[in-house]
């Protein structure tokens, strides 16, 4: 199995093949999907895509971290992080597909 990396271009190519819009418009739609998901997350909303997974925001409190190189203590500011929880379908397909 040779590993490769897909990009926006591959996603818009898939949209182009599936629906028969222009390549340009397919690319814009891919971008628009990513933008809407990002905007919802930035506004603090979770995004739940059935049979794909859920993106949610977690608040992290301030804590004291350490510079691993110097051992120096540095405060880590409170921040919001994004977590992704894959659906059962995604987990199943990814596990089965990679065991082949």
């Amino acid at each position, binding site marked *: 199995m040779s*590993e490769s990396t897909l990009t926006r271009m591959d996603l818009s190519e898939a949209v182009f093949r599936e629906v028969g819009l222009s390549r340009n418009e397919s690319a814009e739609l891919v971008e628009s999907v990513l933008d809407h998901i990002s905007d919802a997350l930035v506004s603090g909303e979770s995004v739940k895509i059935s049979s794909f997974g859920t993106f949610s925001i977690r608040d992290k409190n301030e804590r004291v971290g350490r510079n691993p190189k110097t051992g120096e203590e540095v405060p880590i500011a409170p921040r919001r992080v994004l977590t992704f929880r894959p659906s059962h379908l995604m987990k199943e*397909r990814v*596990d089965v597909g990679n065991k082949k």
Partner: protein
Amino acid sequence: MIKSELVQKIADENPHLYQRDVERIVGTIFDEIIEAMANGNRVELRGFGAFSVKKRDSRTGRNPRTGESVHVEEKYVPFFKTGKLLRDRLNGE
């Protein structure tokens, strides 16, 4: 936001497309990402994030209720890493 709301937003912005085509477009995008990972590939969406597959080795686990040892087979799990731009936007930068 759930998938149908995402579809609705895209449909509202593209009045020349049928709603069912927007559903297919959105479905195709998510399906393509899963398919890529099922084939052992990465999906890198700059600014948004990257989906990849991690291998978990087989291990001896324990049934937390009975304390009994159980063999857990190796498995492949989906993983998402948030892109820098989105991570910064989440923190108002």
